């Protein structure tokens, strides 16, 4: 920096600064993709250099080849898993919203039910699947129920938290207007809990997906979980990995959809900044 502040002399560096900041933004936007592509390249390189056997760790190229070759069955299995997950998830949303609202609105109910819910949530859902099989047999139903069981809890806890933490003064303001309990819930409690609710959807959709795949692996004859199990039992390791990649892609896609809904519905809460407000899950 010299002492001169000629406006004409500043124009070029200023333009340069704009260009640089634009480039930085572009790199920032591309970075998630770069990380994914980079790790696949690194993986490919490691497999070639260390001569790792394909049945231990197949190279990404082999995985994608196997995936492409079996694209029909993979697509079918993915669709099955997707539908299973969504059904379980929607059930969880309906139940989580309803139960969360009830528990958040009544502190007596909150005290009564909450410990039991925590106990229930602590039970690993994998352990529940065999019991579900006894009740409903092998197939789609246990997977739906598992997805539901694993994903309703974060929704319920977040909605209940949002409603239960309405500021007492605000409650007084409304009660002094003659507001009934249900009016306070409708005008303040529910809108207030929406950021919590949508934040919990991100978690819920991810764990619902995990739930349905776990159940498919243990007790199903269809779905991507079952597909991977069959592939690895036949030592088609690249194909099993292809299944894993597909689940990863599906997980990201569902998460992105949840984030988009969240941004649309509760922009007021984040004011353009991602707060990552989440309780439980």
């Amino acid at each position, binding site marked *: 920096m010299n002492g001169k502040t000629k406006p004409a002399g500043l124009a070029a560096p200023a333009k340069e600064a704009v260009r640089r900041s634009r480039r930085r933004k572009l790199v920032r936007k591309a970075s998630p993709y770069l990380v994914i592509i980079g790790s696949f390249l690194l993986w490919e390189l490691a497999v070639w250099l260390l001569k790792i056997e394909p049945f231990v760790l197949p190279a990404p190229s082999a995985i994608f080849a196997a995936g492409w070759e079996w694209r029909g069955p993979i697509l079918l299995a993915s669709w099955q898993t997707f539908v299973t997950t969504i059904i379980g998830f929607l059930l969880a949303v309906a139940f989580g919203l309803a139960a969360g609202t009830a528990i958040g609105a009544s502190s007596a109910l909150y005290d009564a039910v909450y410990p039991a819910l925590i106990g229930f949530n602590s039970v690993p859902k994998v352990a529940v699947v065999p019991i579900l099989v006894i009740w409903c047999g092998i197939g789609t139903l246990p997977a739906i129920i598992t997805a539901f069981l694993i994903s309703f809890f974060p929704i319920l806890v977040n909605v209940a938290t949002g409603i239960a933490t309405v*500021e007492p*003064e*605000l409650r*007084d*303001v*409304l*009660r*002094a*207007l*003659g*507001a009934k309990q249900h*009016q306070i819930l409708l*005008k*303040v409690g529910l*809108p*207030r809990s*929406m950021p919590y609710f949508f934040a919990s959807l991100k978690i819920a959709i991810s764990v619902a997906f995990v739930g349905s795949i776990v159940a498919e692996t243990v007790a199903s004859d269809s779905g991507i979980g079952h597909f991977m199990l069959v592939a690895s039992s036949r030592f088609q390791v690249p194909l099993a990995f292809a299944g894993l990649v597909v689940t990863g892609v599906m997980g990201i896609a569902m998460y992105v959809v949840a984030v988009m809904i969240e941004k649309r519905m*509760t922009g*007021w*809460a984040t*004011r353009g900044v991602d707060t990552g407000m989440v309780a439980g899950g």
Partner: protein
Amino acid sequence: MVRDFVELDQVALRYGGDVEGTLALQDTSLTVREGEFVAVVGPSGCGKSTLMKVVSGLWPASAGTVAVNGREVTKPLDIVGMAFQNPNLLPWRTTLANVMLPLEIAEPHIRRLRREYPSYLAKVRDLLKMVGLQEFETKHPWELSGGMQQRASLCRALIHDPSLLLLDEPFGALDMFTREELWLALQDLWLARKPTVVLVTHDLREAVFLADRVLVMSNRPGRIIADHAVDIPRPRSLDETFAPKAIEIIQTLRDQISNVRKSAT
């Protein structure tokens, strides 16, 4: 003859249990006439806020009687506007929608709101204009300064034309200059509508500037130990809070409160 609007007779309030709970109020008696502006001052923790809850019916008195508008208070009143130190605006609503909130809840507005929306909207806009918020009606609370939020909170407390306005240190969190601006705004609002007001504050200048009468509360359990009429004609100017008449009252109030504080320790 102006009638008494708020009457407290030998009121006690004990919370957290009937016998072992904390006694917040005892033998508290006071009257506020219709359309009168009364300020309550006192040492911190003396039960000023508790007094508000009792008057509004949010908390039932443990002993004694509370009457508002000639009727004994047994459940939360629905004729009250309230504002607190925290503006408590709803972040998902614009200023306009925040001020509208009471109309969506209080009778008889809740039934009329849809049919007479344009006239209600005009009313809200008039009120916002009075406090200088007319250009901020589409802004959300986080886009407003603390003083603006508190103005909106005052509008929300007044929009349904409550006959009783309860203010619990509404300007406590604001800086001096903003606070003085809001005193003027509140004075204008009160002169225009003449609701009965009970203002709890620890700012003696605020009490003297705004109120017709200033009541002093004792230490916990609180009761009213002094009652000063503020005989300054309205509308008052901020300068008058530094005039001898106001200074004299402020001095007296100050002495009484510091005596009360000493007697406690």
